[in-house]
């Protein structure tokens, strides 16, 4: 009953192949769509001729930008105060941009018809290198905006610049380093997709979509397409992984809706993998210059960061809208750093829009990588042990709640305990001895491998977020929860968050079960249907447990308080005389006299006379506005073996100690961590979207965009500490993204430690490692060439 490692309720269908994903949905008369995309990164559209495609016998509609423009739908708003082309009208601004939308009677015909559309382009010089985007002679990406003369989007800063500069001026030691967090992609196994079904008679629009945030999608359709909100139902069926790829609205979704209106039939569009990797929701692309000031013995005094953020052709980052750099200003990480300042400049380039995705907790991945790399650079420059530098600078338990130099209030933590546990699990001192011996053997023979040990310590800020601090698209980030209790005492919980594999049907049932003292099997969880769930902003940024989970606990406790009144009426005592033990109310001091929640539920629905003002039933609803974010943390240690002769890296071990406060279902929590650790291997060693000089996307299939397999992953070694969140109703913190955020730096630090190199940018492919050993690491955001 309640919390614990209960097996998952959702597995029964997935194990039998009975999951229901968007592409599994077949509706009567359903049509299939395909998108014609630009082969150019930057080109003016001279003409679009769709006549041949329209005369294809199985084609039912071809939609172009001009047709959308007639309906005022050629452009749509982004979540970041910008607009994005739905179908290009004036010019294309990145390779793969949507130009036309074909609807046909089957998916093969839709694909065939793409080849029949004749688009004449006039190629333009693209802006590929973000570092050249602000050059005076750079081509203009957004020339459709009146008065715009450059590719600058925003400057944003956090922290006290003057105070930080003063600390740096007086510091005994300053280390500086340029770091690139390259463009990567969340690449869930299931691509994005939609089935849009518009009913001309009722005016109702039903949308089945891969939507991590169904209510936000409904609001956006209403706002963009002018459809009354009550006429829109968004249904997110099973989602085959999201990782932030399925938060936003994509042009083809809107096209599918328009196509359904035009044809009067349901329209299905499912991305192929190239479309997924090329156009929807990339992540990162942060060019950072970090500077760290310290005393000679490694006490950190200040941290200063300058960021150039490549946002692509449209500013479409999906994040709380007051924060153009997301939560990057958590970059002081887990350390007591008195002075810190960051300045972020966003630029347009001829690349796909996005930037906030891939389990990044709104750019805390970039922040965490920055600080954890800089701490290692500092240790390298000062000749200190990176574990000792970390231990000496970590926040201490008595400092919590701690307000960092950029203003975040960390809720709770016992950082040294986590790092100590990780070091002990890894056998750190022994690893260092082995490293010396192995390095010596390598230098004597010139053969074999060298080993490296990398540490990272991360703190996240998850559970967005307090209404007073943040909003998305003008919506406060509070989540609702509705709990209905049937006469038998079983319950149905409806929540706004949406699982993409996190196991909400199990975990959220456990939350209710724990609070009401019933079995999780007696709790059904409803999610992913805007007609059946209360408003809330969905699942991303590790916010399900901190926000919707808290809402669930609060609503269950509300039910319990209603049950107390009913129980008091049943037992003819005052409510205050009742004592709750799991599953029942007993009369205080009278052993054996009490009622179970099931009996109370039946009575609540019966003709039992209740006190005035109590109408009956136990149902309740609530909206939870989190008082603060939650701050999970962890200490990660990676051990690698590197072959300097070939540059190949083998991850030998990975120790991960995570503290996400109270764990509702430890089995599921560990699974979440395992997945994020694999992401770290992926980003650190192989995942990459680079572009050639013409703006061609060089990671457009899984042959080129590499994901780790079971062979690259070691058997993860997990450790746990529990420091409850003081403000979450059960002390839980978010965990879904912790390992994705924390692990890349550990892997990179380990590889660079092995080869004794101060810095080289991800991904540390064999070529990059070998080049780093030669003292000539490559820039990884551009095509590999021989110019370097």
């Amino acid at each position, binding site marked *: 009953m309640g919390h614990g490692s209960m097996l998952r309720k959702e597995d029964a269908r997935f194990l039998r192949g009975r999951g229901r994903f968007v592409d599994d949905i077949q509706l009567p008369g359903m049509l299939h769509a395909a998108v014609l995309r630009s082969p150019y990164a930057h080109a003016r559209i001279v003409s679009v001729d769709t006549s041949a495609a329209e005369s294809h016998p199985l084609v039912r509609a071809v939609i172009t930008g001009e047709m959308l423009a007639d309906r005022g739908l050629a452009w749509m708003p982004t979540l970041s105060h910008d607009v994005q082309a739905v179908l290009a009208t004036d010019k294309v601004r990145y390779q793969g941009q949507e130009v036309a939308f074909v609807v046909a009677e089957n*998916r*093969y015909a839709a*694909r*065939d018809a793409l*080849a029949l559309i004749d688009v004449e382009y006039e190629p333009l010089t693209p802006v590929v290198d973000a570092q050249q985007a602000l050059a005076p002679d750079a081509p203009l990406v957004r020339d459709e905006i009146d008065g715009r003369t450059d590719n600058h989007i925003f400057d944003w800063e956090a922290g006290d610049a003057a105070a930080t500069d003063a600390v740096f001026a007086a510091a005994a030691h300053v280390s500086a380093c340029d770091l690139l967090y390259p463009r990567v992609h969340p690449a869930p196994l299931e691509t994005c997709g939609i089935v849009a079904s518009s009913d001309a008679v009722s005016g109702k629009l039903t949308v089945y979509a891969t939507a991590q945030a169904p209510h936000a999608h409904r609001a956006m359709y209403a706002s963009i397409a002018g459809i009354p909100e009550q006429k829109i139902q968004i249904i997110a069926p099973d989602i085959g992984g999201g990782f932030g790829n399925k938060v936003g609205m994509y042009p083809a979704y809107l096209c599918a809706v328009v196509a359904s209106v035009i044809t009067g039939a349901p329209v299905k569009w*499912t991305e*192929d*993998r*190239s479309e997924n990797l090329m156009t929807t929701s990339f992540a990162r692309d942060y060019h950072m210059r970090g500077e760290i000031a310290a005393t000679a013995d490694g006490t950190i005094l200040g941290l200063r960061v300058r960021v150039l953020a490549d946002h692509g052709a449209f500013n479409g980052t999906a994040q709380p809208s007051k924060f153009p750099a997301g939560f990057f200003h958590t970059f002081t990480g887990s350390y007591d750093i008195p002075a810190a300042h960051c300045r972020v400049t966003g630029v347009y380039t001829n690349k796909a829009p996005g930037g906030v995705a891939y389990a990044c907790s709104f750019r805390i991945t970039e922040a965490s990588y920055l600080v954890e790399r800089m701490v290692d650079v500092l240790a390298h420059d000062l000749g200190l042990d990176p574990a000792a530098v970390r231990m000496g600078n970590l926040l201490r338990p008595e400092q919590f709640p701690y307000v960092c130099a950029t203003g975040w209030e960390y809720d709770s933590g016992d950082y040294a305990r986590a790092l100590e546990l990780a070091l002990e699990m890894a056998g750190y001192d022994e690893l260092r001895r082995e490293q010396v011996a192995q390095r010596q053997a390598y230098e004597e023979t010139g053969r074999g491998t060298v080993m490296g040990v990398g540490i990272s310590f991360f703190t996240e800020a998850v559970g967005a977020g307090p209404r007073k601090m943040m909003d998305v698209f003008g919506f406060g980030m509070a989540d609702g929860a509705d709990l209905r209790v049937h006469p038998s005492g079983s319950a149905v919980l409806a929540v706004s968050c949406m699982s993409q594999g996190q196991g909400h049907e199990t975990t959220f049932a456990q939350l209710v079960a724990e609070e009401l003292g019933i079995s999780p099997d007696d709790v059904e969880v409803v999610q992913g249907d805007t007609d059946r769930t209360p408003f809330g902003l969905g699942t991303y940024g590790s916010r399900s447990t901190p926000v919707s989970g808290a809402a669930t606990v609060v609503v269950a406790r509300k039910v319990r308080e209603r049950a107390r009144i009913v129980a008091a009426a049943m037992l003819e005592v005052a409510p205050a005389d009742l004592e709750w033990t799991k599953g029942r109310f007993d009369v205080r001091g009278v052993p054996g006299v009490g009622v179970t929640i099931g009996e109370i539920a039946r009575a609540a629905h019966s003709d039992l006379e209740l006190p005035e003002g109590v109408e009956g039933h136990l149902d309740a609803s609530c909206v939870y506005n989190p008082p603060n974010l939650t701050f999970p943390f962890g200490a990660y240690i990676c051990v690698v073996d590197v072959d300097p*002769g*070939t*540059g*190949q890296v083998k991850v030998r071990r990975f120790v991960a100690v995570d503290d996400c406060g109270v764990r509702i279902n430890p089995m599921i929590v560990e699974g979440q961590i395992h997945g994020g650790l694999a992401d770290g291997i992926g980003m650190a*060693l*192989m995942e*990459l979207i*680079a572009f050639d000089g013409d703006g061609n996307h*060089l*990671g457009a*299939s899984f*042959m*080129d965009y*590499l994901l*780790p*397999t079971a*062979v*690259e992953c070691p058997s993860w070694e997990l450790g746990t500490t529990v420091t409850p969140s003081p403000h979450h109703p059960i002390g839980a913190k978010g965990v879904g993204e912790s390992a994705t955020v924390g692990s890349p730096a550990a892997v990179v630090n380990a590889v660079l430690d092995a080869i004794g190199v101060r810095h080289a940018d991800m991904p540390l*492919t*064999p*070529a990059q490692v*070998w*080049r780093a050993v030669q003292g000539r690491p*490559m820039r990884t955001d551009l*095509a*590999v*060439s*021989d110019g*370097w």
Partner: protein
Amino acid sequence: MQVPAHFEYQRATSVEHAIALLTRHGPETRVVAGGHSLIPMMKLRLAQPEMLIDINDLGELAGITVAPGVLRLGAMVRHADLLGSAQVGALLPVLHDAERVIADPVVRNRGTIGGSVCQADPSEDLAGAFCALRAVAVIRGADGDRAVPMREFFTGPYETVVGPAEVLVELRVPLWSAGSAYLKVDRRSGDWAVAAAAAAVATGPGGVVTEVGIGLTAVGRFLAEEAEDFLRGRAATEANLVEAGRVAAQHCRPTADQRGPVDYKRHLAGELTTRALRLAVERAA
């Protein structure tokens, strides 16, 4: 999902039938075996054959037989079957080394050795191995069989000597080597090679290398005859193996791509040649 354009499909009932179909339907006709190179290219519409001839029913091409002095491999031998043959592993470890790093086990269940070499991808793993072993391709056309050394089989990237109305039927691998090995560097398991090297050696008294074969992958040419010429007749000392690697690196012609820059690939050609030779010599002992 991306899908192929229209084409006709027919199953061949014999090699002769396949050849007759190829002859009848002309140059836009392609043979499909495992399909793991061709079908993805058709989905991406990089290949648009008008007709596919399925040769999966041709059991006559699926044999692995050891005859005196030669291993005969049917073109339809699946990668998994070659890897599953203990006899092949004992005779020619280079083939098992290479097979272990071709794509992944599920793909290897379906992909065939003939399909791989006919695809002639410059990064394909078996090409270098068969070149090192001095294997011979048996190609059948309407006029009968012809034998082409694997070293002359590839005429360019994705191009071979197999004519439009011909079918590769067999690979004959002479069993001259006493030891052999294949070493590959990739970015991830299952990825195409950044570079790889195959080596086969025969040694005589005093550790002299009496014959050597070296094949390279993904560095612009499959052959490294200059390195072979250097090593042949010399003792298999560490210094000579390193020098052979240096010669191989000098003569290869890599180009830069996302797997790596030219200097790195050239370095790998040398490093892996030396290492593969070292392992082949060890195995010969």
